[in-house]
């Protein structure tokens, strides 16, 4: 395949059958529409390209900035598209809740503005709602912005009306599936695809999945949030059901570990929601049916999301030389030394003084002659073995003497003959009037 532009690689994604041994449905063939294989990595590539294309030339000439409200894949696709065409891109978002995405957008050259949180002292008569101000700024007559407006822009839906929908029908031999399952974000893909499928077969059943209200699933809106989406029309869906973050992660793990599909949580949610819905129908079926769900994007960008919600999925063995392996008795047995004694010891025996605080705090004030090994780095060094010679005594210091006691215990267990912990830490040192320097 030889292409003149990466944008030519958008669309024509494969429809892949999910192994029945995984989903357990006996009468339904379940297909995944792998939108994650678009060049920028998600279903949003189609909408982003279709929305921004008409305005790009004028934007480049007028040095306008493309702007969108997105904290995820739309912003990612628009960053890349804008960059290709020499146009700058800015995204304005509520909190980006996926930290990797923030860094990625910055890496791709986007400008990221995060809106303030909800006010704590609410003034119901306030008119300075940040989003309202944003819209006012954009609608000014000499606005320097090209606003793609994904939640209202008909070209979002159109991308799927002309692309995603017809592709599914073609791959199923000119037939619409009996069931179509999609998560509702901007509602662009579900609306566009549903319209195409219904045109082929009015009997197709469309299941829209929304996030549980108390939950957060990237790329999916809650039942209240979808009401504010211009493209959302409840009539598009025969059924609207709720999925949770747990469903999303479970589905994601199944697709990744058993189906060879490294899908993100939105795809995982679609899979879980699809199987739950279809399982109830499957029991009563006698003839074969087909169902299609959309895999929006890839798994790699969601490690912190998984780490926060399901740390067990990322479990790593504990290292032997780690403070986590210490018993309370070992920590209690660590040698402590109070400030006055420590001052004398430093003067007489010149122990190596190791300050375990962060470089920023060390730089501000520290004990003269000490070296700074921040605790995280110290832990890493110790995993490999003793980082200090046994021939020289060591005095460990941290803010209150707690961390230093743990490291003293660990180093003692590893065979160091004379490690002591500064009791009460640097705070006690300061409070006793002992000297701290800033160099």
């Amino acid at each position: 395949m030889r292409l003149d532009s990466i944008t030519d690689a958008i669309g024509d994604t494969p429809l892949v059958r999910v192994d029945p041994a995984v989903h357990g449905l006996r009468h339904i063939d379940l297909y995944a529409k792998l939108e994650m294989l678009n060049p920028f990595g998600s279903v949003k590539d189609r909408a982003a390209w279709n929305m921004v294309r008409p305005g790009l030339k004028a934007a480049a000439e007028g040095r306008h900035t493309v702007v969108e409200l997105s904290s995820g894949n739309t912003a990612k696709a628009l960053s890349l598209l804008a960059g290709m065409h020499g146009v700058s891109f800015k995204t304005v978002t509520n909190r980006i809740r996926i930290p990797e995405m923030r860094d990625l957008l910055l890496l791709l050259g986007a400008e990221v503005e995060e809106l303030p949180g909800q006010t704590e002292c609410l003034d119901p008569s306030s008119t300075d709602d940040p989003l309202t101000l944003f819209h006012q700024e954009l609608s000014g007559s000499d606005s320097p912005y090209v606003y793609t407006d994904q939640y209202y822009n008909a070209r979002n839906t159109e991308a799927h009306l002309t692309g995603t929908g017809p592709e599914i029908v073609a791959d199923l031999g000119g037939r619409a599936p009996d069931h179509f399952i999609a998560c509702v974000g901007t509602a662009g893909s579900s609306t566009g695809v549903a319209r195409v499928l219904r045109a082929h077969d009015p009997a197709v059943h469309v299941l829209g999945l929304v996030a549980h209200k108390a939950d957060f699933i990237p790329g999916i809106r809650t039942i209240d949030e979808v009401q504010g989406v211009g493209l959302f029309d409840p009539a598009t869906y025969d059924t609207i059901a709720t999925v949770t973050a747990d469903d999303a992660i479970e589905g994601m793990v199944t697709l990744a570990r058993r189906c060879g599909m490294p899908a993100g949580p939105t795809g995982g949610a679609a899979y879980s929601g699809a199987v739950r819905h279809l399982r109830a129908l499957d029991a009563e079926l006698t003839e074969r049916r087909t169902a299609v769900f959309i895999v929006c994007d890839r798994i790699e960008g969601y490690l912190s999301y998984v780490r926060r919600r399901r740390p067990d999925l990322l479990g790593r063995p504990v290292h032997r030389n780690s403070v986590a392996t210490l018993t309370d008795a070992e920590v209690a047995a660590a040698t402590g030394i109070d400030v006055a004694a420590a001052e004398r010891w430093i003067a007489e025996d010149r122990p190596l003084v190791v300050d375990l605080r962060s470089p920023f705090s060390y730089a501000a004030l520290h004990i003269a002659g000490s070296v700074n090994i921040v605790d995280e780095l110290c832990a890493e060094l110790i995993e490999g073995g003793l980082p200090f010679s046994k021939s020289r005594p060591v005095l460990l210091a941290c803010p209150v003497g707690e961390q230093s006691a743990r490291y003293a215990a660990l180093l003692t267990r590893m065979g160091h003959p004379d490690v002591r912990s500064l009791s009460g830490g640097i705070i006690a040192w300061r409070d006793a009037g002992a000297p701290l320097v800033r160099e």
Partner: protein
Amino acid sequence: MGVPLYLEPRLAPRAASLLASGRFLHALADGLGSPLNVLLPDQLADNLARFRAVYRTHRLTGRIFFAHKANRSSALVRRLAATDAGIDVASLGELQHALGAGFTPDRIVATGPKTPEFLWLAARTGVVVHVDGRAELEQLAALVRRYGLPRADVLLRLSEFTSEGSRVLTRPSRFGTPVAELDALLTTVERCADAVRPAGVGYHLDTTSLAEKAVALEGCVRAMDAFRARGLDPRAVDIGGGFGVSYLADGEQWERYTTELTQAVMGRRPALTWRRHGYGLSHEAGTLRGTLALYPAHRPVAAEKYLDALLSHAAPTLGRPLATLLLEGLYELHIEPGRALADQCGLTLARVVEVRDTASGERLVRLAAGADDVALEEHGVLMDPVLVPRDGRQAAPDAGGPVDAGGPVGVHLAGNLCLEADMITRRTVFLPSPPREGDLLAFVNTAGYCMDFRAGEAQRQPVARKVAVWRDGDAAEGPEGSGAGPWRWCLDEEYWPVVQQHRTRQHGGGEDADEA
């Protein structure tokens, strides 16, 4: 009516037990009138202990200042004076009140816009002054020099913190010095060194967002470093308040309610509000517009848990948890919670004076109290009142279903002013049984900003009296609400932590208490 959309209040054991004492509450309201504010000073000490426990977890030291402006009560301030807490005063009157309640100056911080008299009394007594900017700093220094006052400890309020990477936007504030002007501020501090001593820096952000506060807190730590670079030795970072309160017992109810409200605004279900008010939401060509202008009444992470989350949050550029950053910098942490410390510390009673149905079929319940007496709505807090029946018939606030002949009912609560807009809330309030004339409605958890912040004497209607209530044997040292004795009360201005003990010993029996 459909399924009643309750928004049941979260009740700490003390408030729950008080609400179960219907005859006691009716006796109070009969004697002292409606509306009536009832305060639970011992709860304040419990809330304080929970904040202090978070400090201990993170090995941090520093002061917890109660934001006095949340409530004018003497009982709360005097009860607090008997603990290790500090108090944040925002006016001359509040400063006098705090000094008179027993707070020593080292436990007081003066904040907000200040008059010369307020500044003078603060400097004269040695109270820490939270300074807004260079002008105020110079004004304070001039005052100290002119009247030969002791050197004043100052906290410098900073604002407009900047973030790296993505730009975290924050609502502009009228208060504080932009960090971009820190150098000029430091030069002023040095020039005034004979009259003021920098105790630290602070911020107060009006936001629920942890990310925004993390940017500000790290900004403060960096500012402290700028002080040290100039040879100054500030000790404290003051992160203000805004820790929030969770008002509702049940998150599901809150979620169901907001969904139904959205549906009602969209016209997909019958109205849930007086005259189709949308609480900030509106409906335009099939799409929802606007933002829900309501306090997030159910918050899984609020008060001391919010502080814990903030302290555990990573510093945006330095990476370490914010608590570690403070600890490693050898700094103390000051906080100024108002609403969160006053959580569950008081309720407002209002008498039902009329129940009637309007021509359009709405049930209107008129109360002997106005919207300014129960300012929950003013603060965007949607929460059901608790029905305290006159005759002791069971009100059954639990989910057991209808017990009264009437069963659940949706009502509108009107105030006592001759004014169309005087509605206690614009929301249809669902109650488990119909209120009758003479019943009391108890609006719980009003002690933080919703009790006396705006109450006035419009139309010569009475301002609510305040009483403090407590039970024998209830003290902050014991398990929460452990007192098993009868309820006691006194007028708010008569309350002193010692009087409480004294009276309990003097009188044999309790006030009229009627626990089942």
